[in-house]
């Protein structure tokens, strides 16, 4: 039976058939037929954002916290170009998104028509794939393919550009099962030889470390479960990138904390001194490796990744394994167990002793104060007062983001949403909206810097309109703190344009939007203020005035090696480590 319907109807039908329940979008001339269909149904909720960038970040938050693809609907021209930052963000962090853009009618394409932009051209380098659909009979098939591509292999954003006449025209609708999901079927299982090789390295390693990344989260809950099983069974230490936090619980014995530029001393030293590095779904980003030539010089390296192009891109590895983390870990566990669960017990014990010495440096120590709120203290209190709750954290970009990664403890995957690869200021607030849409009863906190937060503050309107009780926890240092820190340490203390001048009164701003504002600048009152934020049933802007000149440590200055970390003056000096203080 063929089903004829208009392109616009097909869009809504295809989204329903793909199990979509929320769309983040903003209307305009070139998508009006689709908006008309949205108006006439109830199955799909539409969240009207206040800027298209916000729609994309919200969809990212939704996707990251649910494991399902996020869906965005925007108009042609400026609607599409406003979405580009968000799409690029999703590409770099491998977040599955399906972005639908309106386009001028097919007969106007190429004429510089009103609100015409070459959307597929502009987004070709920042999507995993994109399509311009000129034939209504191809529309449903393309949408189904788009979901397949966005979610298979290494996930990522895809875009479908739909001219307005295609939305009006009738065509044949096909169901997802009948769609050509094409030849695109990335390999997920590793060969038995590769798995056995990895097992034999595990059996022989004396100073191993698991280096995990966002790929473990993307692989799904099973991957995190299997990682926990393997780590606990082998007793190997585990560290993670910013994107992978929560895959292994922060309360786990083997947890070293985050690694990288602002990673923990023990994590970076373990990476530097290991003899076997097992990279699971991370990509040797320059924020992780520091100086590549000096990166973990004595280790054999294994890299498991679903994307072959991530392997040997930056760091040459000894054992490349292309596959999905969950599949590979399952096979590794089976083979390792069947071969007698061997590890180098005594050597591992020695390795752990070394790690414990590094832990003894207490690299996150900071100088407390009872006069001003230290940003680290604010996060420690946030952690203490929200621990054990059904909690999701998003962040903006800057010092506060790194402190959040250091001081908040993540026990489960999909609970931590941050812009890692692109480092997009303005990500966190809209992302928190997307998370809250997916988890209406959970506590969603965006740990923000005042400068980043202003970049998408218009989304207050969205939060209030949709009654999304997102908590905006702004660590307000009245500075572009991370920029200021680099200027202090690397540019002779010349603070070029790193002040946040003319800041709004955040409490009044909240009230102007019809939300609640809280101000706190006193460490003694902080706990009560945080509780007031948590307990308020509605969106809150929390203006937490913090120390203005605090630096985020440890820090590996760019271009330096892992063992050339800068530590805070308060950390315990380490004798044997070669760390600079």
């Amino acid at each position, binding site marked *: 039976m063929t089903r004829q319907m208009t392109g616009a109807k097909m869009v809504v039908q295809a989204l329903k058939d793909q199990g979509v329940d929320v769309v983040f979008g903003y209307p305009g001339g070139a998508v009006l037929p689709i908006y008309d269909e949205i108006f006439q149904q109830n199955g799909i909720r539409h969240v009207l954002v206040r800027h298209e960038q916000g729609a994309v970040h919200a969809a990212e938050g939704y996707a990251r916290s649910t494991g399902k693809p996020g869906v965005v609907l925007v108009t042609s021209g400026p609607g599409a170009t406003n979405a580009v930052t968000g799409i690029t963000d999703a590409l770099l962090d491998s977040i599955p998104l399906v972005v639908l853009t309106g386009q001028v009618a097919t007969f106007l394409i190429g004429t510089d028509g009103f609100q015409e932009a070459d959307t*597929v*051209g502009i987004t*070709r*380098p920042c999507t*995993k*794939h*994109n399509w*311009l659909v000129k034939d209504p009979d191809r529309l449903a098939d393309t949408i189904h393919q788009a979901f397949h*591509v966005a979610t298979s*292999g*290494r996930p990522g954003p895809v875009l479908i550009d739909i001219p307005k006449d295609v939305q009006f025209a009738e065509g044949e609708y096909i169901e997802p099962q009948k769609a050509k999901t*094409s*030849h*695109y079927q990335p390999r997920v299982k590793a060969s038995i*030889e*590769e798995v056995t*090789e990895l097992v034999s*390295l595990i059996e*022989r*390693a*004396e*100073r191993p470390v698991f280096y995990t990344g966002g790929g473990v989260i993307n692989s799904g809950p099973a991957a995190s479960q299997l990682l926990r099983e393997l780590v606990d069974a082998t007793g190997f230490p585990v560290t993670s990138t910013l994107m992978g936090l929560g895959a292994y619980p922060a309360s786990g014995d083997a947890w070293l904390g985050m690694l990288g530029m602002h990673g923990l001393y023990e994590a970076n030293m373990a990476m530097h*001194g290991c*003899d*076997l590095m097992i990279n699971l779904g991370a990509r040797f980003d320059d924020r992780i490796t520091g100086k590549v030539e000096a990166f973990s010089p*004595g280790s*054999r390296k294994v890299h498991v990744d679903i*994307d*072959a*192009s991530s*392997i*040997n*891109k930056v760091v*040459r*590895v*000894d*054992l*490349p394994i292309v596959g999905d983390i969950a599949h590979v870990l399952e096979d590794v566990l089976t083979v390792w167990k069947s071969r007698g669960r061997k590890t180098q017990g005594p*050597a591992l014990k020695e390795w752990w002793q070394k790690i414990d010495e590094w832990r003894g440096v207490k690299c996150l120590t900071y100088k407390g104060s009872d006069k001003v709120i230290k940003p680290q203290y604010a996060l420690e209190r946030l952690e203490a007062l929200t621990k054990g709750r059904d909690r999701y954290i998003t962040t903006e970009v800057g010092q506060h983001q790194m402190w959040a990664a250091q001081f908040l403890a993540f026990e489960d995957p999909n609970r931590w949403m941050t812009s890692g690869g692109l480092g997009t200021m303005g990500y966190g607030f809209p992302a928190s909206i997307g998370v809250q849409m997916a988890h209406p009863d959970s506590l969603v906190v965006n740990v923000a810097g005042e400068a980043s937060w202003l970049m998408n503050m218009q989304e207050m309107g969205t939060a209030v309109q949709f009654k999304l009780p997102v908590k905006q926890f702004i660590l307000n240092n009245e500075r572009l703190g991370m920029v200021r820190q680099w200027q202090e340490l690397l540019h002779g203390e010349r603070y070029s344009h790193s002040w946040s001048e003319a800041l709004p009164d955040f409490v009044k701003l909240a009230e102007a939007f019809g939300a609640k504002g809280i101000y706190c600048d006193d460490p003694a009152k902080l706990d009560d203020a945080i509780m007031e934020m948590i307990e308020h049933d509605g969106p809150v802007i929390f203006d937490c005035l913090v120390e203005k000149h605090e630096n985020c440590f440890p820090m590996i200055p760019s271009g330096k090696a892992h063992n050339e970390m800068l530590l805070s003056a308060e950390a315990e000096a380490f004798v044997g480590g070669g760390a600079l203080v």
Partner: protein
Amino acid sequence: MSPLKIEQGASSHSVYPLRDPNSDVVEKHTLAVLVENEPGVLARVIGLFSGRGYNIESLTVAEVDHKGHLSRITIVTTGTPQVIEQIKAQLGRIVPVHKVNDLTVEGPFVERELALFRVAGTGEKRVEALRLADIFRANVVDSTLESFVFQLTGAPEKIDAFADLMRPLGLNEVARTGVAALSRGS
């Protein structure tokens, strides 16, 4: 710390025994890329090369399977072993790319290119040009009293050599198709 107990290249999948990881010897490779013949696919391939700073020495593209909607892109590129491997992996992840073959490492292959040369001149030079064209088995496809257009097919080196010889004899325009390549044997 104790010395390493796991030898370098201990894994049978190790890349070390195959290639020096830090080799900065630049190699030339011919890649055959089978792609879905859909709009924008060539832009994706070219965008990948320009976006990531890879070299293109030659690029040809044409549909090879009308029914299957498949085109073949032949790319001649240069880079260190690591860059070449990256290029192949990056090409492989483009959604409409079906297959990437590195003809240079997969065994013997033939490479051919077609070129047209306009050589203008009179007297001795004109005769010499014709004589050399004969040696190279180039065909005359157009002639006037002052010029010839020669057509030559062959490996790129042969075409380069012919161009070098024609230059002093009045070569004033060249058009080349770029390389088409196939592996030898069945």
